[in-house]
């Protein structure tokens, strides 16, 4: 049923799926890192503020 032989279209199909997968991975990793970084920063600074008051 799953026929992965694309004949002459192989390059195009693999390229399209490959680029899509790459972009998704990049967007996901970047977004998660962005979020985690600022969460850390915010919590650190909050701890500093609490320590001072």
């Amino acid at each position, binding site marked *: 049923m*799953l026929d992965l032989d694309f004949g002459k279209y192989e390059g195009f*199909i693999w390229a399209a*799926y490959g680029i899509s997968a790459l972009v998704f991975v990049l967007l996901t990793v970047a977004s998660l890192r962005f979020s985690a970084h600022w*969460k850390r920063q915010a919590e650190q*600074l909050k701890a500093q503020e609490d320590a*001072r008051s």
Partner: protein
Amino acid sequence: MAFSRWAAPLFGGLAVLLAITGLWLGFTAPEDYQQGDTVRIMFIHVPAAWLSMFAYICLGIASFLSLVFRHALADAAAKSAAPLGAGFTALALVTGSLWGRPMWGTWWVWDARLTSVLVLFLFYLAYMALRSALDDETKAARACAILALVGLVNLPVVHWSVNWWNSLHQGVTVFAKGGPKMAPVFLVPLLLMVLAYMAAFGALWLVRIRGEVWRRRADAALSRLART
């Protein structure tokens, strides 16, 4: 914040499930008698194109709310949508090219849809550039919101103008979706992939909004600490 903590992973999981199902159905479907196997590209091109527009609509609504209600969360939402929208738009352009080359023999054609997507990509770049070029965050937020609304009005005009231009040149071939009516064997995986992409956008958007909110809290805390 509490909503996004469980909603983001939920949307992410949903996206993965939908994508697996959609792709399985898509690849086990028979070859389209006109397009052969290249129809498989449709399953990632059409969702990307739809999401590029959807992300813009989200950005537009968030910008409108940001201008009218001056709510920081609306602005955070608009800012977070931009890079995602740009990513989807770029994907739509690239996959469209890779689909067009074997199908219609050309990497690019100046039809209404493709040109509008290209202009949309330029808009996303302009939006992100304007954000980073202005140092004052409040000003950057409002300027970007104005830009978003101007662009929202302009995009249909662009689409329409290219349509008009193409109609002058009697029936230039326009990239079709693969036939006037789509058979269910293709339609179902396509819809699943569109939903998968939307869920993925939802997940990533929430993640970025959370990050943006934390960034503002960190900024505020930093300036409070600096003052003491």
